[in-house]
């Protein structure tokens, strides 16, 4: 599916501005953006729930269909599981017998066998969302639109359902436009990720590209990239002119690449190669993490996040500490 110069207005306000997007066949495209950026509006526009003010939507094979799954299951409360799943088939005029057989057959894919006669209020949140997905998928849409479908579920159930849907998509081969605000969810399923800000797509790329080279500080901020500083600040810490493009005036480094230097054992300092610097600071926050500790260090009035693995002792608050920063792990991007 391809969108060309799409604009959508609600109450005369431009929510989506001249947006271009192409979703490839069999691809999972994850759309991320802050609240109010126009993600849901775009999905509703593609699904035909909102009209386009301008622009056009085209399909590779001339015509195409979409299925939309909302954040909440929105099941019809007076219909059973099987009737809910078969609703779209009923709309298409398929006979009762045929649509019931199709829906019952589809229950296996949804892992909802033996629940066909239950009503929505008799299902758990995860089961309800699976019915909602089944209701859209049974129509064989060319593009499945997911509007944060698992956001209201608890973490373990959310992860299970993501895995389940990912496997289902890889088996059946449909395309997905998946809206989420969970970075872990995006990284675990996305073939490509798009960032939408103020009604426009600001950057599209494969996940690693997006994190390594954010197109702007706004995107870096939205992705919550840690240890983001200006080239000037990095130069101050490294105390020499830095290589690289001058237009890339900001850089970030992953906390796991920063190393704490134990004051009691300075042996590590001797191994510092040329392309690294040492920053001194004070510990302001210590939080345990799965790997070790996540430590916030204040240096030159800037906060640095450091992740440790196997740190022998727990750093104390206000403790003076030294951090080794390897230059090669800094990712540069433009403001």
């Amino acid at each position, binding site marked *: 599916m391809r969108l060309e110069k799409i604009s959508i207005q609600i109450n005369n306000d431009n929510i989506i501005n001249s947006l271009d997007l192409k979703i490839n066949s069999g691809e999972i495209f994850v759309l991320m953006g802050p609240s109010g950026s126009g993600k849901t509006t775009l999905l509703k526009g593609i699904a035909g729930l909102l009209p386009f003010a301008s622009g056009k939507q085209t399909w590779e094979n001339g015509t195409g269909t979409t299925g939309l799954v909302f954040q909440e299951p929105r099941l*019809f409360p007076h219909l059973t599981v099987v009737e809910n799943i078969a609703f779209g088939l009923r709309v298409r005029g398929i006979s009762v017998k045929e649509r019931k057989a199709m829906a019952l057959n589809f229950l296996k894919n949804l892992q909802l066998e033996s629940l066909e006669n239950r009503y929505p209020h008799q299902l758990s949140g995860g089961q309800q969302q699976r019915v909602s997905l089944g209701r859209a998928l049974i129509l064989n849409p060319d593009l499945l639109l997911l509007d944060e479908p698992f956001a209201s579920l608890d973490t373990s159930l959310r992860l299970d359902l993501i895995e389940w849907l990912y496997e289902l998509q890889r088996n059946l081969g449909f395309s997905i436009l998946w809206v989420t605000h969970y970075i872990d969810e995006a990284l675990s399923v996305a073939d490509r990720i798009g960032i939408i800000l103020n009604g426009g797509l600001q950057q599209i790329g494969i996940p690693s590209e997006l994190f390594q080279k954010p197109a702007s500080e706004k995107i870096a901020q939205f992705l919550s990239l840690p240890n983001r500083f200006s080239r000037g600040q990095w130069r101050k810490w490294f105390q020499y002119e830095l290589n690289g493009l001058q237009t890339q005036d900001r850089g970030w480094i992953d906390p796991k690449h920063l190393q704490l230097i134990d004051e009691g054992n300075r042996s590590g300092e001797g191994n510092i190669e040329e392309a690294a610097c040492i920053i001194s600071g004070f510990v302001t926050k210590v939080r345990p993490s799965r790997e070790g500790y996540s430590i916030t260090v204040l240096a030159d009035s800037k906060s640095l996040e450091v992740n440790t693995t196997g740190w022998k002792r727990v750093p104390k608050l206000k403790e003076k500490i030294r951090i080794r920063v390897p230059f090669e792990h800094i990712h540069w991007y433009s403001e």
Partner: protein
Amino acid sequence: MVKRKRAQRILIIIFIILFSLFFLLPFIPLTVWSFTKQWPWPLLLPEKWSIDSWKYLLSASGRAGEGIVNSLIVAALTLMGNLLLGIPAARTLAQYEFRGKMIVFSILLAPLFIPYTVSIMGMFDFAIRFDFINDYISVAIAHLLVTLPYFVATIWFQFRLIGRKLQEAAISLGANEWKIFIWIEWPLLLPSILLGSFLVIVISFSQYLPTWIMSGGTLLTIPLIMFPFASSGNSSIVAAYSLVFFVPILVLMIMYYLLLRINSRKHFMDRR
């Protein structure tokens, strides 16, 4: 614990008895009055019993059958008008935003707030101008004005509860407006529609002035038959008519609960 539960049970039974008496007590003197011509204070029961009122009521000149049939026809027409106008109006008011929405809502509910005499004068003018319209229809139009606010308010609330989310889900599955209404909204609205219809029929049954004005007193519904006896102080006949008048309402009430039960069993039965 057992004692507490027992006390609770006794309290519930007492409450049910008192509640039932509240509804049933008025029917006791009504029944007694229908079988006597005189029941002076402070006698507990009348000295003489008579079935004259019932004889009159069941005779050709009593016209009770005609009254009930006319009342039912007018109520049915009024209900049809309410269904045709009330459901789309309630849906629009509950689910769509547009300029002047509050004004439209106020106009629809106006008969609840405008003094009855003002409405009646308006109806009188209408009756003169549209004298050529069939009596049943003109009376039903008058009853529609009186009943529409109650019907709209009942349905509007249910439409608000349903919201637009299910509509959006159905549209995304390819359903058009009509299919959404028939397959999704109607079944969910049914309890409210039953309640609203019950209210409409009961209110229509008890209208005297609008019926009299619109038909010029020629369409005899039960209130029109009863009124002369009530104003002449014939308590016995009024009591007999009141009891007859209550029969269709009782039947409707039973039908309402039966339909409600069938609907809830059909759609929300726990099959676990």
